[in-house]
């Protein structure tokens, strides 16, 4: 907490310098935020992590001059990442809209053919569960617990009031616990795990349409 202030000030200086054309400042800022941004996309759109990380970094240079200085650089960077994510989802969501209640989660949006490789079995399940809660909730949980942002900062990144973020985080934890419970029970069940919810839903759709 004590070194929070100076770091933040450094980040601001680096961002200003980069926008002004200082490449070395840019490299430092890149080193500081690469992992944050990479991790953000890796847990959501694994197959496009690299592209989206790159777009975010490029947008950061383009729009760095818009940085108001009211929030932190960290939430500014993540705000850009959130917009890049939204844009990406919109681009691919157009032809495959699903209107069921859970559809806004990564898993149900059919994102990412691959599993994350996490350190141990519990974490693997946790990452899976995260991918099964609505995306907005997933983002809130990750930014809070992984990136250590507080509700105000998350609110800045997502463009919503902090109170909404607090509600959402409570809700997210409830959902996450449900999903986690279901995953632990379901680990042995072929229907839900072996086939994967994604393919199962797709099967159903095709069965109905092909009728």
């Amino acid at each position, binding site marked *: 907490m004590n070194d929070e202030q100076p770091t933040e000030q450094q980040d601001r200086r680096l961002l200003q310098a980069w926008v002004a054309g200082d490449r070395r400042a840019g490299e430092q800022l*890149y080193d500081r935020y690469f992992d944050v941004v990479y991790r953000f996309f890796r847990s959501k759109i694994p197959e496009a992590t*690299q592209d989206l990380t790159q777009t975010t970094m490029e947008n950061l240079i383009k729009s760095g001059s818009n940085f108001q200085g009211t929030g932190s650089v960290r939430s500014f960077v993540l705000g850009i990442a959130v917009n890049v994510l939204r844009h990406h989802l919109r681009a691919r969501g157009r032809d495959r*809209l699903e209107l069921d209640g859970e559809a806004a989660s990564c898993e149900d949006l059919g994102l990412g053919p*691959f*599993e994350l490789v996490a350190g141990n079995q519990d974490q693997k399940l*946790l990452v899976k569960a995260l991918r099964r809660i609505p995306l907005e909730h997933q983002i809130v949980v990750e930014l809070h617990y992984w990136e*250590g942002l507080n509700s105000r900062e998350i609110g800045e990144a997502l463009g919503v009031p902090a109170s909404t973020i607090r509600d959402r985080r409570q809700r997210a934890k409830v959902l996450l616990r449900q999903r986690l419970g279901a995953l632990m029970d379901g680990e042995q069940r072929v229907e839900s795990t072996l086939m994967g919810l994604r*393919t199962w839903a797709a099967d159903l759709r095709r069965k109905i*349409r092909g*009728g």
Partner: protein
Amino acid sequence: MIGHDAMVDVRANDSMVEASASNDPLSVELRRPMVEAGDGFARGIAYETIRQRLFGHVRAATIGRHRLEKLIGSGGMGEVYAAHDPELDRRVAIKRVVGCSDVDADDAQRLRDALLRDARSAARVQHPHVVEIYDCGVQGDDLYVVMELVEGPTLDQWLVEGPRSWREIVELFVQIGQGLAAAHEQGIVHRDFKPSNVLIGTDGRARVADFGLARVADELKVTRPGNLTGEAIPATSLGVVGTPQYMAPEQYRGSSVGPPADQFAYCNALYRALFHAPPFSGRTLDELASNVMEGHLRPPADRHGAPRALVGLVLRGLASDPNDRHPSMSELVDRLRAVLLRRTRIAWSCGAAAVALCTALGGYWWPRDSMASPCAVDEAPWTVQERARVHDALLERSTTDSWAIGPSMAVLDQRAHTWTAARKDTCEATLVRGEQSSEVMDLRVACLERQRVQFSSIRSALEAPGGPAGIEALSLARQLAPASDCSAELVRQLATRARAFSHRTERSATPESEATWRELTERLTRARVAAALADYPRALDEARSVAELAEAEGFGYLLAEARLLEGAYGMRLARTQQQHDRARKALEDSAPLAVASGSPRLAAVAFLELAAMAPITGASEDRSIWVELAAAHAALAPFDVDLSRRMMLARGDLARERGSLDDALRHYRQALSLGEPGHDATRAALGVAEVQRARGDLLDARQTLEDLRRMLERAGGTSLLAPTLHNLALVALDQQAVEEARELASEADAFYRASATVDELEHQQARITLARALRLEGGAMLAQEILLDVVAVLAAQGIVARPVLLHALDELIEAHLDLGVPHDARVTAERLLETAVLHYPDGHAEVALARMMLAKAALAAGDPELALLQSRHAHESLGADADALLRAELGFRYAQAAFEIGDRATARQRWQETNELLDGIPGAEFGRAEVQRWAEERGLDRER
């Protein structure tokens, strides 16, 4: 490459994590660093590549001479990267197999040699349908294989992308089979064939990947978590390598594995692709394994149009004993090709001459080279050009609901596709397979012809300038009857009934009547288009006159359809009881007519319409009868997704009305689970939210609605946003977030105004909510103004609008009272009671509520006698099962009125009753305190 340390930098700063989270086991779990062990490599490449693009340093990661560009896939064996080969200046894919960490150096070396040998032998297979291997080698602990880069989906992705006909699937599998056959000829077995190992290039060419890698991984003892997620499992858990869903019995047993195992996996994948279900069941891995080993093969429940011969070929490939399968992959491929060919050549029209010719030949096998064949080559209800024109027209017109274009085209494609299949099956069932009589064939052909005419008239309506777009186009497309309505079984029943009652079956043979029939079908489509564009008067006129003509001509099905539409549109326009009864009569006529003309589906729809209008007439007992009748008829009809979703919605509405919230929620969720966006799906989501709200689960309700809102916004589904925003406003009101509610309701109002085909009642309801929020915010004047307008609009709507009108009058009374004009309140309350009595029986809660409002207004206007009269009347007519809050408020008004006229004993008695009722109502503390204060001020609490 930077170290992994940065990945552990999670900054779980305790002071940032709110204190409430600290005893929460989940939050402890979450605070743990997420080290993604196998991911550091990919991350490193991303880091370097982006750094290079942004800042121009060259420090790229390489494998051999190849510069890695990015991660494009990962699975049980390792990761796949896109890379650049500078020497040959081409892009390649590199598979990196990680491992060897648990093995000592000598073993590792020996294993690496073995697997390199395997990979090199796999590289010998050069075939258009096998992914080409350029090179392989070892770097550090890892083996890498350099391959041809195929840009395009894997087979499983391809299958999910859209509905595929059996023909498309078999054509693709023939390519894949050739690839496998070529490998088998080289003595190479795949061992882990599955859809994710097949790549389909943008040129449409399928290529099989990862030959022999399963064995390689086995030898490397790559101990990836053994799992049930469709990845290969390691040697340790079962002593075998493969992917459980696709593994052959001999693989499960651990016996020697040869080409027949690949054939098994191939047929397994083909089975799933064709019939949308796995060939072996099993909820657990053990169960699955034993079903596979014991050969408990499930025959497909639904062939999805695939010919029987094809089913036979697939099942044979899945035989338990490898010797019982097809002799070889190439043999199987030849047989699949033959099925495709046979089906293509059986050509032409089921004309009389062909019937005679075919019957003479005895039907069963149609010679391959015959010039005249009895069944058409994929006749379709529209041409490719027509389809393109519809698509362009929809695209051009879509201003709001652009998302609906995809689903609309999908519905049309599906109808066209199943029509083509049904048309062909009809012909072949009689002429080729000899399964059905020619009478049934004629009936089915007539039925399908009717559908074709309907299809083309809807198509031209969609194509025409000024036609419906967005969601209106989608609902028009959904009105096309599915081809399953013309199934052999249904027309057979129809024929039996026609014989029994000596009815005429649809359409007479004369050319005049044929022309009339076509014209009427076209006119009915015009009625539908008019309705889709919200021109109900025109739609009703058209439907009504088609009904008259169809009746005169004796066109049973057409008459049923016309009466159904007449009833449905009439219902929307009914202003008087008489008009309402007339519409109801049309619907009631339509159902038996539909049954008589062989369409239980149409009958079910008619009953659903009747159920939907039941609340308007206040007859809720009728409603459950209509729903049951609809269900009974729906059960007779072939499965149809739109119908079953509507069924579930109707059941949900019914359950909600009866207060069985759990059941309501279940039905709405079921309706939602049927996917596909549109009105009905949105209705289902709104239903879920309404039930959640009714239960007081406001956070859940808000969540459901916000998810829906986001989805609609992302998709551009503007016309469905209005009801969503309105429901959000209601939730906000419940949460006392008045300002937010006002904003949401006024946004909803704006959306309703912007929409061309608005549901007037829904719109007025949103305005009532807006007025309520305004009043609660202190803007009673503005609220009153809005409500006066709402009441005028609703009054002009006549009988259909009555329930909503009652609500508007309630709000208007409150506004009058807030503004301090109790006499206006009293006049409005009298009107409220009048309207309620007109619509509902005396004991109905609505009537009691109206009396309560009148009592309240009378009290304010200084007329306690009237208040006493009304509240006593209502109090006596209400049963003990009536809503507790209503009874409580009524009791309170009764007490107030009694007190005003000096009857302290009654006042005290009613006050105590009210208290008891309020005690049992969660969340009524505020009202309870108010009532208490009233009694204390008047000393009632001290009397006995």
